[in-house]
């Protein structure tokens, strides 16, 4: 068992199925069991791919790169 933080609420969760878990990782939890750990590198890749695709698409349509505002991502 381990303690997980659900956006401010802490709960005991069974980590039996994610033996490789280390402190600080994110997990999907289902009925009290962590079923997988989140791969942050993959998450970043998905997001950056999306940003790239958009830039190409915008250039197709408007012939110019997007403004800084349109480029704004998470946390801004």
């Amino acid at each position, binding site marked *: 068992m381990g303690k997980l933080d659900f956006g401010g609420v802490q709960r005991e969760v069974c980590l039996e199925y994610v033996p490789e878990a280390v402190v600080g990782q*994110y997990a999907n939890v289902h009925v*009290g069991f962590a079923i997988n750990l989140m791969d942050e590198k993959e*998450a970043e890749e998905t997001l950056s791919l999306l940003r790239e695709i*958009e830039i190409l698409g915008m250039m197709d349509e408007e012939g110019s790169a997007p403004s800084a505002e349109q480029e704004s991502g998470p946390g801004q």
Partner: protein
Amino acid sequence: MKHVEEFRDAGLVKKALADLERTVTQPWVIMEICGGQTHEIVEHGLDQLLPPEIELVHGPGCPVCVTPLEKIDKALAIASQPDVIFTSYGDMLRVPGTEEDLLTVRAHGGDVRVVYSPLDAVKIAQENPDKEVVFFAIGFETTAPANAMSVQQAHHLELKNFSVLVSQFRVPPAMEAILGSPLNRVQAFLGAGHVCAVMGYWEYEPVAEKYSAPIVVTGFEVLDLVLGIKQAVEQLEKGEAVVGNAYSRAVTREGNIPAQKLISHIYQNCPRAWRGIGEIPDSGWCLQPEYDFYDAENRFDVGQIQSKESTICIAGEILQGLKKPVDCPAFGTLCTPEKPLGATMVSAEGACAAYYRYGRTRDG
């Protein structure tokens, strides 16, 4: 929270939708299997934001919805017996059987308890050696690792007073049943991300190939859903049909191996009846013969059960993607979440309940 907000970011969703619009050139019908995804789609009106060529239909991936009425009636009969503590996930308590629901059984003096995790049910069995503790083990592949572990735990602790009423479903055979139906309209699937987090997606590869239907593993945030739909449309437009993964931050091809190991140790494949659809070969899990002792259906004699479904309800057609909730004459009138006639209005994850909650009508 990291990597949650980003996948809900309205700006990014708009970008992804614009990108999707550039990809689509003709009409396509795509089914999201998972009830959680249905809920997310209807809540955010995503189906209405998509390019008009794309029609989303809602699949049978809501365990409360597809648990057959006979099983619920059996649960009610067991829970009504003296010296039984009946434990269940909260969302099963309001599900009506032919005559009553688990809440009514509790009101009449039955000991019905909500548990957050199946291990809580095992604990209750440990603390109450003079009572029979039954856990209603419902769910898809997502809850199977937890449900299976409760049996293993009880076995390890040599608990004689613990048993499970199993209503455990598997997604791939249901996809095959839908794709193989002569009435089928579904051209591609969004695979349920959490199911695949457990099982991986290797099981889907033969299905995609056999039926020439793309299957894209998809997450649960709005952006995840758009990205999943985008991958599916890309394949459809190119005439491809493979398994894609739009939820790579959580899902690998092989899935969670320790979880799969315990599942196959405790459970074996078996035919399973789906409420509103009927029996689908191989679509369920039952206890392995060596864990028969923990099967509540063997332990309790509840006699003959006469279950009676509503004759108006079209849940079966909705669960197969043939109809939408608003096509039902009883939707929102005779049938509401407070007084549901059938499977898809019963659970918050059901398509009818989602349409009702977010005010969908025949006009959109």
